[in-house]
């Protein structure tokens, strides 16, 4: 067997192992190990690939702050700040059907301006938003679906780890990429909001038959202030601090975490027992998610060695199919690879391969970056390997919601992303207009 064939076989085996219920990180590791063994003829080399990926993959400042973002969200949840914020959101959106779902999308868009990484959004809102929506009569499936869907906003609205990676791969200004991500990000949030509203109206079986958003008693303005102020103060601290230059978006995880603890203590709503318990839980979520990411990296390095993704990329790059042919084939390839690979691996493999092909076509590389990130992020929601969905599963305290439920709940949002992707493809100014050219 050639390495290419081994790579294809490894793909197939992984999909089967995931569906028959093997633990996903362990399945990824087993497949990577065996495939490298067969390819290189050496179990020792195969082991080394695992060991190097284990110590390298998450060893960065970016990943280092993931637990702090998660902890911040959990403290917001355990101190009741999250619930209060939803009561306020409920008042604001009470005229809309599906108001809490819309509120979750909006809150995610705000949180996206703080975090550069989608897994943080997914972990945080699983704790804050899902229980509130379920309490108000939304189906569990929809509740986790809207959290999974809107978590992708974290990578589109700046700051964004993926846009930084793309900037590095293509030598484009990260500043320009961030500006270009704003309108598509807000557009995606808007379409998610409209989608939720439409589903509440026309597809109540999916979102929930008896939504009690508007049953809550009206809050007077004093109550609104009392409930809304703490979370507003936290957002102000974090966003204000970033844009005033006190700290970087990476450091914001730690500052926001400390801020949430202080606010919790001041409101006397954070007990030592609760604190320790969410802290432990933060660790378990971080460990299971990061271990999964490490395993995914092993798998993607194995695939890179097999040459399979590069061969597909070269096929698309060298096919004589014109501008739209190349762009559409590329987008399709990214989406297909998104079903089984993690976001950054897809970009690492495909972007450098496509770059020499698209540069002579005079394609705007900033626009192409936004297209790439949108297409890559769809993969966060698609089975069998969808990292946002996996994060929600490990952050969830409800065993009655299966992975399949979350994938199903997220599917409408993946479709809406496809719609926004098409719009950005058809109307490049959506990305490039604010850059003034």
């Amino acid at each position, binding site marked *: 067997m050639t390495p290419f064939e081994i790579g294809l076989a490894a793909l197939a085996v992984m999909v089967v192992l995931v569906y028959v219920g093997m633990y996903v990180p362990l399945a990824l590791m087993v497949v990577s190990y065996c495939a490298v063994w067969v390819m290189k003829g050496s179990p020792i080399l195969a082991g080394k690939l695992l060991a190097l990926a284990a110590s390298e993959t998450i060893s960065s400042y970016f990943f280092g702050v993931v637990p702090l973002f998660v902890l911040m969200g959990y403290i917001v949840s355990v101190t009741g700040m999250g619930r209060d914020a939803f009561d306020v959101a409920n008042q604001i959106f009470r005229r809309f059907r599906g108001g809490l779902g819309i509120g979750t999308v909006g809150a995610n868009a705000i949180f996206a301006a703080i975090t550069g990484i989608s897994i943080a959004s997914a972990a945080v809102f699983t704790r804050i938003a899902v229980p509130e929506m379920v309490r108000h009569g939304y189906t569990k499936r929809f509740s986790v679906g809207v959290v999974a869907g809107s978590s992708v906003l974290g990578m589109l609205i700046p700051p964004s780890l993926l846009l930084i990676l793309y900037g590095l791969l293509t030598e484009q200004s990260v500043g320009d990429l961030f500006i270009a991500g704003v309108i598509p990000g807000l557009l995606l949030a808007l379409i998610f909001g409209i989608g939720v509203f439409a589903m509440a109206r026309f597809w109540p079986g999916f979102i929930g038959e008896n939504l009690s958003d508007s049953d809550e008693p009206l809050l007077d303005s004093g109550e609104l202030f009392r409930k809304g102020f703490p979370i507003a103060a936290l957002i102000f601290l974090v966003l204000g601090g970033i844009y005033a230059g006190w*700290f970087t978006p990476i450091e914001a995880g730690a500052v926001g975490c400390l801020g949430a603890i202080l606010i919790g203590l001041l409101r006397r709503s954070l007990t030592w027992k609760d604190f320790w318990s969410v802290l432990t839980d933060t660790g378990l979520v971080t460990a299971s998610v990061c271990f999964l990411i490490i395993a995914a990296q092993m798998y993607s390095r194995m695939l*890179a060695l097999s040459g399979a993704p590069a061969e597909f990329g070269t096929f698309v790059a060298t096919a004589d199919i014109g501008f739209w042919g190349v762009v559409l084939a590329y987008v399709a390839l990214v989406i297909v690879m998104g079903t089984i690979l993690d976001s950054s691996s897809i970009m690492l493999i495909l972007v450098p391969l496509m770059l020499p092909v698209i540069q002579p076509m005079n394609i705007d590389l900033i626009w192409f970056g936004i297209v790439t990130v949108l297409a890559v992020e769809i993969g966060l929601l698609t089975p069998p390997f969808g990292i946002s969905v996996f994060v929600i599963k490990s952050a969830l305290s409800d065993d009655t919601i299966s992975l399949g439920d979350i994938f199903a709940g997220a599917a409408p949002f993946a479709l809406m992303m496809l719609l926004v992707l098409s719009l950005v493809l058809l109307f490049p100014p959506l990305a490039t207009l604010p850059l003034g050219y």
Partner: protein
Amino acid sequence: RAETVDVTIAAGHPPVFRWVKHTSQTFIPAVNKALEGSGITVNWSEQYGGSLAKVGGVLEAVEEGLAEVGLVSSLFEAAKLSPQNVTYFTPFVSSNATAISELMDKLHEENAELRRSWEDNNLEYLGAAIGIDDYLLMTTFPVNSLDDLKGKKIGAPGPAVNWLKGTGAIGVSGNLTTYYNEIKTGVYDGVIVFATAAVPGKLYEVAPYVTKVGFGAQYAGGIAANKEWFDAQPEALQNALRRGGVAQREAYHKDLDQAISASLEAMRANGATITEVSPEFRMKWAAGMENVAKAWAAQLDGEGKPGSSVLSAYMDAMRQDGATPVRDWDKE
């Protein structure tokens, strides 16, 4: 007799980086060309941009044999290739990247101790020195005297944080990919960066004051092969790989030289103010620094690595080459 050798070649940076681009466009063709008529063909598998190993992980990937050849950034291997980082501990020596690279490759040929730090990591150094153009100070404010730097936060790559000690500026260990945003929001008031990286990142938009302080050009790494593998290869292939190294160094630096002037021109065209400091200013800056080179050499000597000897060999060779270091770091 015909023979095909499978070679995986890895780099942590993506191919848009000049040194990786030349690995693909100069090194590999040069090796192939040198092999013509030998009956050996190499079947290359190119793994760049972190698809097999991250920037700081290429050395280990090649050392362990996951890749046969790699583009190793000594700058990101401060512990394993410590003598190779000599240039970063001796600023204000020369701003000629081509000269520094030629000299570092020559030193590698002549100085067994310098080669040993590669060999200790099971690597065979193939040359292809990567020179980095003269580091500049880019700030949001004009720099006319050292006093202008007081209390200002300046982002810098790890070893360059030392250059700021004694200036009154606050050195913050930073990362090229986030400089733009951190200057824009005000986390940094400036950065230490080289021109050919400042242009693609559009740093001149947020830090339009470009000051040529004279920190100097640097050596940042080269191409190396897994030593065990290399030693087992036929001589023709070994020689071809070495020839590829020389070809890459020459082509890369020719390309770099053009890019440096183009980059400075591009910054000026986009409204940046480029100034060169006076010799007195430079002298004062250098005089205010601690002699980190000495501390660094002493530390290496203590670990049984060639610190002092590489320091003086490098400084001697640079002086011989006509450079006039602002401080003779080795002689103090």
